[in-house]
């Protein structure tokens, strides 16, 4: 696996941007200024980045309620995302979607989704469109361990296999469906076991290791682009925060997250590897850190200052024409 220095820095920036976006939201949410539900992706960055580093304008992804990471990785504008989460008119969705519905179809981001298991059927459709229009594009459904139990996911795996669609079904198994352990709620213990039932390859990768995800994603995407059909990839991963902001997480071990941050943090592992291999200087990555922090800081400042939508916005954007 070869990655140029520019690629490595791009991946690092992507993951770092997601991390700082989420860490900042965690702080800001606690002030009470952010309305509604917010589900943070911190800890899972290597998954979004490992897949989205391979994607371009032809490709489409569908995300989950925990969608900020995928959105950033697929190129959604950070300022607009932040403004959206603050419910502002300048938001990516004009303040009509919020955290759970961040989407930018022009960027191939079919939306975070408030419905667990809502994405896979849509991704079958995006894959079908790519196949019929011969764009060479692929479509990726990111699903959690909760969503992967939904009937929609089961149906979509079957349909994608029957139609041999250029789709990837990525189960980001962070161990908890809301507050319920995947060890209890998932009958097969390991999601890759389900792949063979749908006649597609299924593999597991360590979601803390960007390089493991990146390589597996690359192969699955290559296979899909070349007409090889869908794949199932389980990314074993951890989230640093609760199901939603405000979740006391009494279902988790006392030092669980602390230990994860110390031993399995994807950014830490990434830095150690590229520095150890003398591929990227620490100074280059430190510079990225500084720039990302400034970007997030600026996005929060602007989001707070931005105006809210007005009464005139309530009734627009329901239909193209009515």
């Amino acid at each position, binding site marked *: 696996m070869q990655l140029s220095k520019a690629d490595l820095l791009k991946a690092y920036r992507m993951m770092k941007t997601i991390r700082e976006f989420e860490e900042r939201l965690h702080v800001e949410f606690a002030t009470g200024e952010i309305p509604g539900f917010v589900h943070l992706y911190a800890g899972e960055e290597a998954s979004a980045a490992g897949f989205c580093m391979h994607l371009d304008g032809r490709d489409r992804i569908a995300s989950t309620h925990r969608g900020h990471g995928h959105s950033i990785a697929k190129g959604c504008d950070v300022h607009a995302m932040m403004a959206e989460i603050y419910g502002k008119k300048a938001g990516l969705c004009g303040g009509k979607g919020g955290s759970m519905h961040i989407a930018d179809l022009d960027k191939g981001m079919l939306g975070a989704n408030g419905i667990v298991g809502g994405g896979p059927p849509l991704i079958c459709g995006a894959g079908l469109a790519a196949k019929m229009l011969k764009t060479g594009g692929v479509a990726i459904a990111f699903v959690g361990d909760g969503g992967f139990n939904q009937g929609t996911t089961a149906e979509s795996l079957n349909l994608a296999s029957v139609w041999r669609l250029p789709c990837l079904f990525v189960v980001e198994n962070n161990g908890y469906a809301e507050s319920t352990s995947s060890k209890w709620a998932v009958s097969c*213990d390991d999601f890759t076991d389900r792949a063979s039932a749908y006649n597609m390859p299924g*593999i*597991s*990768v360590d979601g803390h290791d960007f*390089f493991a995800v990146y*390589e597996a994603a690359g192969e699955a995407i290559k296979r899909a682009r070349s007409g090889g059909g869908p794949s199932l*990839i389980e990314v074993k991963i951890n989230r640093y925060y609760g199901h939603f902001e405000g979740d006391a997480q009494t279902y988790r071990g006392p030092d669980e997250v602390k230990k994860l941050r110390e031993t399995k943090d994807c950014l830490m592992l990434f830095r150690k590897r590229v520095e150890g*291999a003398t591929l990227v200087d620490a100074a280059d990555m430190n510079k990225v850190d500084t720039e990302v922090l400034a970007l997030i800081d600026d996005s929060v400042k602007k989001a707070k200052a931005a105006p809210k939508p007005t009464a005139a916005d309530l009734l627009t954007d329901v239909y193209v024409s009515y």
Partner: protein
Amino acid sequence: MARSVARVGIVANPAAGRDIRRLVAQASVFPIAEKRNMITRALSALGAVGVNEVLIMPDGAGLTHRIVRALRAPLPEGQVWPEVRFVDIEPGDTAADTLDAVRLMVDDGVGAIIVLGGDGTNRLVARAAGEVPLVSLSTGTNNVFPSVREATIAGLVAGLVASGKVTRAEACFRNKVLRLSVNGVPRDLALVDLCSSPELFIGSRALWRADGLDQLFVSFAEADAIGLSSIAGLVRPISRRAPFGLWLDLCPLERASRVIRAPIAPGIIVDVGVETVTTLTPGAQVPLRLKRGVVALDGEREVEFAPTDQVLVSLAEDGPFSVDIERTMIVAAQHGLFVRTGGSEISAASGAA
């Protein structure tokens, strides 16, 4: 007859059989449920030959959970299972689990360890098993070191060895091993093959591409093997028991002195250019040609190295002990261990010797 406790360890790698080779090749998928079934079949056999206690490596991926459920269920009619204990580690679902668990099993005096996994799992167990013999069962078709055997039989032989009914001298043999040191410090080992490649990252570990492979070291090379060692096996087959290994410098096809078409992964048969073939004698320290890259141990990329690192490979004869399943059962048969006379119990079923 003095009675002591017969213990057997079981290490099952829950992650084995789900790596990237399912995506890039047609490698077999091995469901966790089947691993659980293999363990329960082995437990039946272990109970049948009088093993008192079985130590199992716990995991976080659901295998433990399944075994616990199986233990709570009523036993099949007429069966007696050994006591089952999960060794005291906190599973992190990494390689360290296996190393830690095997060390604890060795400390607790297990007489044999049943290993469910592939070459990679056995490699880890070998690092910590010391003198304890392994009964290696392949979970999948992508392996060279373990063989595809029925778990019931594996349970029987592990029990016979652990309880001393068949002696180690009769049942076991010692494997060769390839050792890797970085900057003078022993780093890791390989049971079958060790290969260097100019890739920069370990990535998803498994190695399945022939292009770029630089050097291949094998402790043995079977002509009917799957994987990288097949390249050597098709040039010059070398048995597990031979007192030497082999070292091949590989190269692009156009520069090759010979081109070998080898099955380097399930469903992947490719041409590999071989520049030179050298006998690897025990003790010789061979430096790698590459300055930067990764080393794959038994087909899995494990070690990244930079130009500042000095990387050496050597062959040693003090590898792990393995139980020869076929020979052990022949010996048991010759001793009449499974013959029932009159109303008495078979001797294989008695307590530890």
